Every structure is written in structure tokens, then in C-alpha cells.
């Protein structure tokens, strides 16, 4: 650890304590300019506040936009956003009297709420085009959780400013520096007991991406504070991309191989896709969920133009269906694949018992055609009962929107749960199942149906246990 220490530094503490006493004398934190030109002087000058805002790419014209100001303090930013035409909600964890006075003097309509960051949610406040999150992050006991709350409320861009521990280094160096945060158990930082974490610049950028933002950009570092612009959308794709779009085979919960996700669990999406592009790298992948960009955590090449990426479920997904698609830096978007978010009250378990198939005679869909059955390890129809051996069934079905639980795979007439279902495109599908433990040496028949169709043709496999 070579980060210069601000915590425990008597100079820094002295400066903070001086500011606190100055604030006590001046009374106001933000200076406020009234319409008649009168200035209420505060600890922070109007010029300083204008400079701070100008360091972020916040549009001048905000008519019709919703803006949330988290940690509004004296309210200068809220009133400025309102002046630019926005509908503004300001929140703070303690009631600041000067906000009320300024609001009245300015004839402002800003909606002022007393809420902790932990209490913010789209249910309570709706969602916002732009969110200002200035000088709050390091006061939170759970900084990444706080950023997730902010991300869930943002539909376009959040502007974040935080104390950083390596703010005296050049921006370029600081960005690629180590990703650490200091933890302040008592009053190590500035003699205040409500400072909990001091991230390095690199760590702050990492936290913003990890919380669910697609693109995170360092704007400036001034006076131990870093400003970061966090966008929820990818850059627009190029109008004439040189590469064909990828094809998404499936997007599943990496714990359950199912398409269902639970809001209280730490869940990861695993996307399997085909792409003709060689040598893809993680930073070339653009995953979108309902139009929001999500960063990929790992990329793995599976061979035969197959790729796998894993990513965290972004915060704030409502219960119900969500659309996943993928492009690369050089392609258009793939097909979309649907996943489902459970409601918080719904059973956490996805293994809700077997799905009920309709009687064969009242099938409404045509029988699938089982065109291949394979051992995933060898690509043949010969199985040995190895630990990692899986039974892969490839079939054609015109039934739209199949999920894992719509398909019943049978070995010699006994059902074997489908662990995984992939959409191969043009009516092609693939299931993965375990090799049944009861399987004896010799020949066996695999077949399948959907909940709404008759059985497919049967395909013969061979089982030979190797001693």
C-alpha cells in the first residue's frame, strides 16, 4: 500500500474542522443567488458550484427531464437543475433548514424528501434521466450497495463525486492504480465519525462499473475529490458495422442453468453465443438488458465459434420478463433472449416441481424432430458414465419461446431433468441432461417432447462402463 494517507493526517483534519467552524459561523453551506441579484453567502461560493457542475457533461437544456439530487445539502444543484427546466427531486438524510428557506425565496417547486440512500428505490421516487450523487459515497457504510441504488434509479446518466485517497496523483496514473479502499472505523478521516470509506480513483471507477453502469468515465480530480460520469447505455453501434451480428443461444442463471433470477440473491447471468469474429476480448462485448448496457466479468472461448460471457444481474430489474442481447464493438445486435426476474415474495427455489405436460392426444404443437444425440465430451453416441458427461439432444421445433421446463427428455421412457436449453436459431434447440444413474450396459433409446407436443422420433445410444 503506497497510497498517500489523508486519514490520520492532522493537516487534513485541521482543514475539515476549520470548514466545520466556518460553516457554523456563516450558517449556510451553499451560497445562493436570488432572482433579484441578492447573494446569500455560504461556505461554498456560487463560482465554485458552477465550476463543479461544469466539470460534468450535464445538458444545459433539461426541459421534460427528471433529475434526482442525492445529498442536496443547501440545494444549489437542485435549484440549478430546475432553472435548466428539469423536474427535480432532492433528498437528504437530515433536514437542512437553509434548503427550505432558499426554496421559498426562489419560488422553487423542487420536491424535497428526507431519505437515507438505503431507502431510495424506484417504487418510492420513480426513475430519473439524470442523478447527481455528490459528496455522499464515502459517508456510506455500504458503498457498493449505495451505488446499486443509484444505478437502479438512473435511466441515462449519473454524475458522481467522491473523496478519493490518491487524489494528488495525475488522473492517468490514478485511474490505472491499485483498486483499494480505506476503511475508517472511527474518526480517522477528517475527525468526522460519518466517513466510512475512502476509495482510490481506480477503485471508485471499479465500484461504479460493478454497481451496474455500462460506461464509467473519470472527469477530473480536484482537491482529493474525483468526478465520474456513469452512463447506463453503450455508445451507439456504428452505422455500417463490418461484422455480422452474434447469435445468442441462451442466457441463464449460472447457479441453476435456468432463466429465472431472484432479486435478493447475488445472481450472475451466463450468456452463450456464436460469433464469427476471431479473438474477441472482454472489452469488445456489449451486452444489453432492456436496453441498459452491462459490463462483462469474464469471457470464455468455447470453440466452434462458441463464446460464453458471465455478468452480474443489473440492479432494479422489475419482476417479469427482460430482454437480453449482445453485440460486439464491430457488429449489430444479436437476437434477443428472454429472462425472468422473480418478485421478492416469490419462492426463491426454481425447482418448483415438474411441469405438467398435456395429454398426448390433446397436443397442440407438432412433434419435435430429434436430429442428433451426443455425449458432450466425445461428440459421439457412446457414453461411459464419467462425472462430467452430459447427454445433449439436438432437435427442431417450431414452438416459439421454449424454456428449460417446457421440454421433457426421456431415456427408455423415464424422464431425465433438462438442465439447460439453448436456442440454436432457425427452430434448432439443444438440451443438456445428466446420464441417468440407473443406466445399464447396452443400447438405450432417447426421445423428447414439449409440454404441448407429441413425442419426437427416438435415437439410440450405447452405454459401456469402462473399468
Amino acid at each position, binding site marked *: 500500500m503506497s497510497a498517500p*494517507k489523508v486519514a490520520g493526517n492532522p493537516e487534513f483534519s485541521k482543514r475539515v474542522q476549520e470548514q466545520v467552524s466556518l460553516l457554523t459561523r456563516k450558517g449556510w453551506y451553499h451560497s445562493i443567488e436570488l432572482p433579484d441579484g441578492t447573494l446569500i453567502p455560504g461556505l461554498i461560493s456560487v463560482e465554485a458550484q458552477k465550476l463543479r457542475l461544469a466539470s460534468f457533461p450535464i445538458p444545459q437544456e433539461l426541459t421534460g427531464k427528471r433529475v434526482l439530487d442525492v445529498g442536496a445539502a443547501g440545494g444549489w444543484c437542485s435549484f440549478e437543475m430546475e432553472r435548466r427546466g428539469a423536474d427535480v427531486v432532492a433528498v437528504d438524510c437530515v433536514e437542512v433548514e437553509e434548503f427550505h428557506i432558499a426554496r421559498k425565496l426562489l419560488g422553487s417547486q423542487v420536491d424535497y424528501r428526507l431519505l437515507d440512500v438505503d431507502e431510495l428505490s424506484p417504487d418510492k421516487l420513480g426513475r430519473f434521466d439524470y442523478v447527481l450523487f455528490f459528496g455522499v459515497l464515502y459517508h456510506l457504510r*455500504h458503498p457498493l450497495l449505495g451505488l446499486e441504488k443509484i444505478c437502479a434509479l438512473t435511466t441515462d446518466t449519473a454524475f458522481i463525486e467522491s473523496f478519493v485517497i490518491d487524489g494528488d496523483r495525475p488522473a492517468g496514473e490514478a485511474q490505472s492504480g491499485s483498486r483499494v479502499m480505506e476503511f475508517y472505523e472511527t474518526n480517522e478521516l477528517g475527525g468526522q*465519525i460519518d466517513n*466510512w470509506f475512502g476509495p482510490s480513483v481506480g477503485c471508485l471507477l471499479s465500484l461504479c462499473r*460493478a454497481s451496474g453502469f455500462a460506461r464509467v468515465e473519470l472527469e477530473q480530480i480536484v482537491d482529493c475529490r474525483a468526478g465520474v460520469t456513469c452512463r447506463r447505455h453503450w455508445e451507439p453501434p456504428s452505422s455500417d458495422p463490418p461484422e455480422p451480428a452474434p447469435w445468442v443461444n441462451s442466457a441463464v442463471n449460472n447457479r441453476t442453468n435456468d432463466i429465472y433470477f431472484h432479486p*435478493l*440473491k*447475488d445472481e450472475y447471468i451466463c450468456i452463450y453465443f456464436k460469433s464469427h469474429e476471431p479473438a474477441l476480448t472482454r472489452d469488445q462485448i456489449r451486452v444489453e438488458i432492456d436496453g441498459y448496457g452491462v459490463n462483462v466479468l469474464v469471457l470464455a472461448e468455447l470453440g466452434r465459434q462458441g463464446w460464453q460471457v458471465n455478468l452480474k444481474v443489473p440492479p432494479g430489474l422489475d419482476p417479469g420478463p427482460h430482454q437480453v442481447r449482445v453485440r460486439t464493438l464491430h457488429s449489430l445486435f444479436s437476437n434477443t433472449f428472454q429472462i425472468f426476474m422473480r418478485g421478492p415474495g416469490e419462492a426463491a427455489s426454481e425447482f418448483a416441481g415438474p411441469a405438467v405436460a398435456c395429454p398426448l392426444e390433446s397436443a397442440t404443437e407438432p412433434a419435435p424432430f430429434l436430429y442428433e444425440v451426443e455425449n458432450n465430451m466425445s461428440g459421439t453416441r457412446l457414453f461411459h458414465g464419467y462425472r462430467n458427461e452430459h447427454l445433449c439432444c439436438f432437435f427442431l421445433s417450431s414452438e416459439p419461446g421454449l424454456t428449460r421446463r417446457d421440454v421433457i427428455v426421456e431415456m427408455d421412457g423415464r424422464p431425465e431433468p433438462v438442465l439447460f436449453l439453448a436456442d440454436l436459431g432457425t427452430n434448432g434447440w439443444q438440451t443438456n441432461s445428466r446420464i441417468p444413474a440407473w443406466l445399464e450396459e447396452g443400447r438405450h433409446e432417447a426421445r423428447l417432447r414439449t409440454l404441448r407436443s407429441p413425442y419426437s422420433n427416438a435415437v439410440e445410444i450405447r452405454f459401456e462402463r469402462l473399468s
Partner: protein
Amino acid sequence: MPPTSSAARREALRRLNFSRELAEKGWYHSMDFRDGTAAEGVISLENLKRRYALFPLPGDLMGKRVLDIGAWDGWFSFECERRGATVTAIDCVEIDNFLYAQQKLGSQVDYRVLDLFELPQAGLEPFDYVLFLGVLYHLKHPLLALEIVCRFTREVTVVDSFVADADTWRERVDEVPWMEFYETCELGEQLDNWVGPSVGCLMALCRAAGFARVELLGIEDQHACVACYRRWEPVAATGQRPAPVLLAACHSLNYGINFSANRDEYLTCWFQTSEPELRREMVLPQVGDYGTPALYLTGVEPKTWIVNFRLPPGLARGWQMVGLRTTRSGLSNTLPIALDVPAEADHLVVIDVSDGISWERGTVRFEGQGFLSFWIQGLSSNCDRHNVRPYLGVRRLTVEFISQAGATGFRQINARVPAGVEKGEHSFTVRFGSAVSEPQTVRVV
């Protein structure tokens, strides 16, 4: 990606070797099924027993409740059960080996597939002892996780976690606690590793979560093991200094006595002690049965001190007693606070509204400042400076003092009149919960 610590790189290698070994052996914990059969896992039985022996748990766990978080194959769960405990084991995925071992051992362990952050919704009662082994660094919100664990602990939690400075921490005990953050799979090539705290940070997080004291049990293989206690050490039987006198205990922000278990709340206490050279670490506050670390200590006048600390998690709703002692003294007197006690009144009666200084009835003299006193009946016993809300017109007055209720049930309340209140007649009301007193006319002169 920027370079991560050498500890993270070593962990990557260790994990890789570990994954190979796990794939070969099939078991993580070795297991003795007590029927002559056994499973050989990545961790030997000797190693498991040696680790267990470090934990400050009683040998006999009869009648105790134990929670094993991240139980994996379950050796620790089954060991606690063998020693008499009623055990609940949770894991974020169902582990076949656990179910197999449970059946072979005829175990009654309550096994649940839960993420740590689902624990508060799972309807479980608190536990005497909690094992939280090898889970913390997999969590995105480590301090929140420890708060939840603390809430479910009555005595001791044992925390085992990856630490990022296992080799160097001894040389740097004075540095500010820090943790690495792993955005992707920097640690051990696993994407579900999120944080790598320093040893000092791990211990600071445990204290900040609400444990009274934290003890380092050992460091091995890049992991640190710590014991987190909810109570202070027992008071020394002899050689005690006189107990401090607790003068006041109130909410740090609003000076009231009401607290909410669901919020991050802090207490401020004023106390007197004749002990010289008092330091923060020497003050041991407690609420109910639980100790909680002092965050800030300052002397206000000779022998009088102010200490701030966080409301410890997991207290039962209702009245709780606050007290404190020093490392060398016995426990002070105690003062009550109310935890999630509703503030309601059926009927408020206000009499004798008068100037706080001249006692002139129906009038407040305002010259730069002004005070108003009144007598009120009907407030519930958890009334405080924050939840009693007197108003002059629409301006709220700041309550400065509330007396004990007299024989007739009346309390005297003194309140400060805010600057900028206009001269003339105002309607005076007192609000408490949803009740409002009959308006009375008060003249500001």
C-alpha cells in the same frame, strides 16, 4: 487490469490447485461417517479439527443454537451437532455432499439454501454461536453482511476470510485499514470474489458491524480467522476503579431517547469518572446485554466526558438499558432508551403556557432569543425532546427540557422560540404521534 496484490496472485494459484484437487477428490471437507467409512477431502480431518479447536466455543454445546453460514460439505455443522448443539446450516447452492453426509450420519441439521442477504427474511431466531467461514470475501457488501451476522449472534461469531496482507500485516499494524476491490476475476480467477481486506480491516469491519470486541485467532494460507464477541470481558473481581456515573444517554442526532432497530443509529452519553487519562479504547459502552465499541471520546470538563457509539444490532424491541464501564471499573448506573416503541397519546392536555424566564402567562418575550414553558398531560413514557413537537403557528419550537411526570401526570417542558418568529398573537399547539392539543393563544412581544 491493474496489477493486484501478490496475495491475490498467490490465491489464484492456490485456487487453481485446489480446484484440481477438489475435482479429483469430490469432497472439500474430509468426513468421518462414524460407521467405519470416511471421505477424504481437500481439507484433512486433522486440519478441520485443529481449526475447530481454535474457536472459542464451549466443548459442550448442549442446548445451544449454532448457525453455520456457507456450510459446504458440512463438517463444522455436524461437529457442532455431535457436541449437542441445535444447528442450522445455510449455503447459497445445494451441496450434494452435505445431503449425503447428513443422511449417513442421521443428522438433524436444518439445512437451507439461502444467500446471506436472505437471512433476515428467513424467519430464524438468533443463535448463540455463528460460524461464518470462507464467505465474507465473496460478498459485495461485506459490512452489511457482518451487520446481519451480528444481528443473529448472541455470544460469538467466528469469521474466517481471505486477507490481502497475510504475509506483511505484522510490519504494518499502524496503517489505516484497507481492502482491495475485485471488479471481475482478479482474485483466484473467480468472479464471485469481491473484496480482500487487510487483517486490520477485517477486524475493524467486525467491530463496526456491532461486535464489542474482536480477537485474531490465527492466519494460515492467506486466510485470517477472528473471534467476534458480543459482550465485553467480564468485570475483574478485584482492583476495580469506582464505576463511572452515567449522566445522560440520548440519540446523537436528535437528543431523544427513541431509536429504530432498522436504521443506522448512534448514541451520545455524558458520564463522569475520576479515572485519569481516559482513552477511547478504555470506555466500554453497552446496550442491553450487548457491548458496542466507543467511536469517539472527548472530555468536556474535568472528570466529565462525552462518548459516541453505535446502537448494537439485534436488540429486542421495547425498553433497553444503557450503561458503560471502563476497562478498569465496574458498570455504571443505567439509563433507559426506547427501541421502536410507538409514540402515541389518546388525549393531550396543556396548561399554563408561559414565558420561560418571567413566567408571564400566555406571553413570550423575544429579544434575540426567547423561551416558553408549559405543563402537559397525556404523553406516553417514551416522550422525548424529538417526538414532542410544540408549534407557534407553523413554526416548530425546539424542546430543550422535559421533566419527569409529577403525581398528577403533568410534565414541565421548556422550548426555545425560533429566530424570525413574528410579534403578535399565535396559536400554540403541541403534537405527539398523531395527537394534537387544543390550540391556545400565545402573544410574542
